[in-house]
């Protein structure tokens, strides 16, 4: 029993949790931004896959790692533009448009990958991001080797979460996004352009999703597999609800989910003989559902979420 608790104080567990959390943080923030403006973006899974592919491919073709991340973000933004064209400008069903984008983006990733990379035994590799210990801070006990010895993308994810919390809550543009998600008619009455704000939020949010995908191939691993996103996008959609549409909580939620995952991997290794492994695999999901039930009672859903805005129509 003490072993169970001892694991919680190992640096291995916490740094693993942060690594697992990083793609989730990017994509959850992306989904959250879209939803705060009133648009559900189920294209997330496909956009992450495309980001993973195109970011990797750019580096494979000779670009440096940061260019790869930027290329992924731009392609994610392009898919965001497509989604907002369908779901915002045309006001089509956000569910159908989003799922369509997931199917389209995943298949297109596979297609481009096959065209660009010749068939071979194992997929080719790139030199991924290496951990970059922050000077001085990485020497701190426990927190040093976990929080301050990560790859630069993890630091970026953490900073982005704080930045998004600030922008959404403390700046005029954040207010404009929130008001569009609550009541686009009121936004229009204030002289804002709800359509443009929604497009902007979806494009930016999709870029973040693609960066989350790029983390998988440029830091967590060094090759691309067409199915490697493995439902992480759907986890992020749930995390947005868990976070009650707030960036700070999204960050905590992603880290909590990843912590359970990292914990179960260690429990399997140390206690695999006593308990079936399926129980451990279930753990992060079960605990997330429990947390969801407990927390979402207080959640404030953006009022206009999933409601298309058409100018001049009665609200």
């Amino acid at each position: 029993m003490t072993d169970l608790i001892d694991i919680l104080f190992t640096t291995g567990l916490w740094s693993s949790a942060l690594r697992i959390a990083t793609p989730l943080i990017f994509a959850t923030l992306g989904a959250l931004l879209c939803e705060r403006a009133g648009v559900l973006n189920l294209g997330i899974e496909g956009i992450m896959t495309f980001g993973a592919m195109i970011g990797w491919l750019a580096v494979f073709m000779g670009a440096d790692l940061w260019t790869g991340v930027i290329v992924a973000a731009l392609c994610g933004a392009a898919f965001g533009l497509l989604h907002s064209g369908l779901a915002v400008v045309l006001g089509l069903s956000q569910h159908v448009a989003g799922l369509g984008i997931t199917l389209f983006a995943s298949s297109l990733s596979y297609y481009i990958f096959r065209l660009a990379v010749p068939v071979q035994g194992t997929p080719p590799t790139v030199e991924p991001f290496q951990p970059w210990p922050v000077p001085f801070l990485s020497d701190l006990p426990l927190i040093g080797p976990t929080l301050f010895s990560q790859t630069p993308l993890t630091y970026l994810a953490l900073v982005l979460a704080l930045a998004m919390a600030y922008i959404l809550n403390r700046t005029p543009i954040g207010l404009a996004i929130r008001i569009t998600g609550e009541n686009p008619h009121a936004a229009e009455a204030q002289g804002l352009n709800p359509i443009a704000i929604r497009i902007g939020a979806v494009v930016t949010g999709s870029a973040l999703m693609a960066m989350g995908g790029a983390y998988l191939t440029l830091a967590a691993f060094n090759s691309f597999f067409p199915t490697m996103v493995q439902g992480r996008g759907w986890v992020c959609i749930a995390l947005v609800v868990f976070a009650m549409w707030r960036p700070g909580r999204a960050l905590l939620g992603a880290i909590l989910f990843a912590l359970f995952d990292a914990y179960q991997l260690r429990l399997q290794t140390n206690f695999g003989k006593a308990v079936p492994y399926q129980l451990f695999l279930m753990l992060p999901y079960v605990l997330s559902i429990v947390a969801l039930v407990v927390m979402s009672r207080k959640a404030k859903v953006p009022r206009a979420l999933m409601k298309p805005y058409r100018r001049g129509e009665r609200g």
Partner: protein
Amino acid sequence: MTIKTKLHRRTFLKTGAATASVILAAPAAIGQTKIKVAGIHSSPVENAWNSRLHAAMLKAADDGTIEYVFSEGVSGTDYGRAVREYAEQDVQLIVGEAYAVEREVREIAADYADTAFLMGSSGEPSGDNFGTFGTWNHEGAYLSGMLAASMSETGKFGAVGAIPIPEVNMLINGFRAGVDVVRPDAEHLIGFIGTFFDPPKAREAGLAQIDAGADILFGERIGTADAAAERGIKAIGSLIDYTERYPDTIFANAMWYFDPLLAAAVSDITSGSPTGRNYTPYCLMKEGGNDILYTASMVPEAAIGPMEEARAAIKAGTLEVPIDFSEPT
């Protein structure tokens, strides 16, 4: 001046008919020596398992024994359609994977009695034309375990697998049996990632085992060796040769070869024997279906002798590596 053609209508028709019949008959004559094979892969052909099938069929096509066409990334919902389409095109042998579509593919096979099937499957063969095979490279894993046994300082051996299905279990159990025969006091760690295609997760599982003290990792899944490389320990690959990808980390691979299975099915078709049987025994080392591939310079010299003896004994049939389908704990 006019040129009178000597070619009469009747002669023209006769010659034409003769030429046409020769042309039409030609493919049939060629078809008797070259078997038309279609591979239907549910993953990209880079995927470790599919790459073994793909490589064996490409090689057979190069050697001129078969004619090979393939589809990759065929999803479970689309698999039946792909099978029917190839069967309609008079493909003689369909090679693929039935795992996700066991019942459907068997039903389709019953509709096409003239088409032979050689499918990766957890089930039994059915009818005269639906042959199955398992993926057995447990003997190679056993031998790699023998090499690994003396290389560990901590005495803890990790293994990362996808899902504890029988084939994955027997492979990891084979590795463990090899370790234990040299080092009976060895401690074994296990981690299943719950999915087949998540290399970042396999890497995390590997790191968790290293954190728990393992200093040799058996990677049933790609990604495991990345954890080993990151922490500077040694690892073993499975199915394919990972040496080039992880030159300082992978010292042995439990290789699996599809070639003898394909050859057996092709010879059954050529001789007109029914192909509705279990081809798994062709995976055995004595048939050339699996083996160990290792880098001698990375392994203690004293370990190589006994391993090679065991290898020879397995090939000679005097040593039988235990087949244990139970879930490793």
